[in-house]
């Protein structure tokens, strides 16, 4: 996690830098004694986190935040508790630490930022998966385009030039390949367990030796795919 420090007091900059040095994943990229220099820097560079003093001459911390189009996460550092309410107006402000900053209080702040960054990564991955796969797709059956709800699919079976799509409501025979349909299915929900079968892992009823019971179908699991299947199960 890259961060910058903005504080007009050298003592504060030194203390925050020292506190950051205790965290391997926290990398202080730049240190600024005024907000204007930091704005110039941020016009050219990105950062994950800013330690920002509120009380600075000419251009205070809140003035600074208002200049940022896409602000990163910000931890406010200040000698006054009086601005805390104002801080709630900004979504980018993760925490508000009153100086002198104690190591244990600093740790809590960093944990908050890490939590926020993890949420962001998870949300991005989910959005990406949705964009890649969507909630449904269309198949061409007898010159009709039929919408298939992805969540309703429990089994896909390859048979020669065709695939059988088995859903909660209906089964379809489609002229396609397992590889093509595999690209349309989200990885977190579907798994290829055999060269001819893809299953929806959420619909598994039980697993016995080298076969899976899914709805009413018993599907073979190949030896090479079994470890991945076992890894994906929420085993007690």
């Amino acid at each position, binding site marked *: 996690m890259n961060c910058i420090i903005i504080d*007009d*007091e050298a*003592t504060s900059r*030194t*203390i925050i830098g020292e506190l950051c040095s205790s965290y391997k994943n926290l990398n202080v990229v730049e240190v600024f004694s005024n907000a204007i220099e930091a704005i110039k820097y941020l016009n050219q560079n990105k950062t994950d986190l800013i330690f920002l003093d509120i009380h600075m001459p000419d251009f205070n911390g809140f003035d600074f935040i208002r200049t940022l189009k896409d602000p990163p996460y910000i931890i406010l550092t200040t*000698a006054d508790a009086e601005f805390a309410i104002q801080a709630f107006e900004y979504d980018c402000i993760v925490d508000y630490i009153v*100086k*002198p900053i*104690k*190591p244990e209080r600093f740790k809590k702040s960093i944990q908050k930022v890490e939590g926020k960054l993890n949420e962001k990564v998870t949300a991005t991955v989910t959005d990406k998966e949705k964009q890649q796969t969507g909630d449904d797709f269309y198949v061409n059956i007898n010159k009709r385009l039929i919408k298939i709800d992805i969540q309703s699919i429990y089994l896909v079976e390859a048979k020669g030039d065709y695939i059988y799509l088995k859903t909660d409501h209906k089964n379809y025979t489609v002229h396609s390949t397992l590889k093509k349909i595999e690209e349309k299915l989200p990885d977190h929900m579907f798994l290829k367990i055999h060269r001819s079968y893809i299953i929806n892992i959420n619909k598994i009823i039980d697993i016995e030796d080298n076969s899976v019971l899914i709805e009413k179908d018993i599907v073979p699991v190949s030896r090479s795919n079994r470890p991945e299947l076992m890894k994906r199960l929420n085993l007690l």
Partner: protein
Amino acid sequence: MKEQANLNYINSLSGGDKSFEIKLFSIIKKEFKIEKNIYYDNIKSEKLKLCSENVHKIKHKISILGLEKSYKIAEQHENNLREGNSALQDKFSDILNNVTNYLNKL
């Protein structure tokens, strides 16, 4: 009786790293001297709002040295100065002298 400064906070930061302690003391001494001089200049010129800004910076150093009672006086002095009131000036000057003496001994 003058309040005694302590190094508890600095020790908690440094974890025994003497080179960091030396570096931090050197910065505090240098910065405190500058801030104190600017404060007195502003007091002389009766620029009380600017004085309150100076006290704001100085009070952080007072808290770093563990001077809790002095910090409260500094905080009150800062607020008063913002309102154009310098009634705590003498008390604050005593605090500045106390900090100066302490830093000079380090």
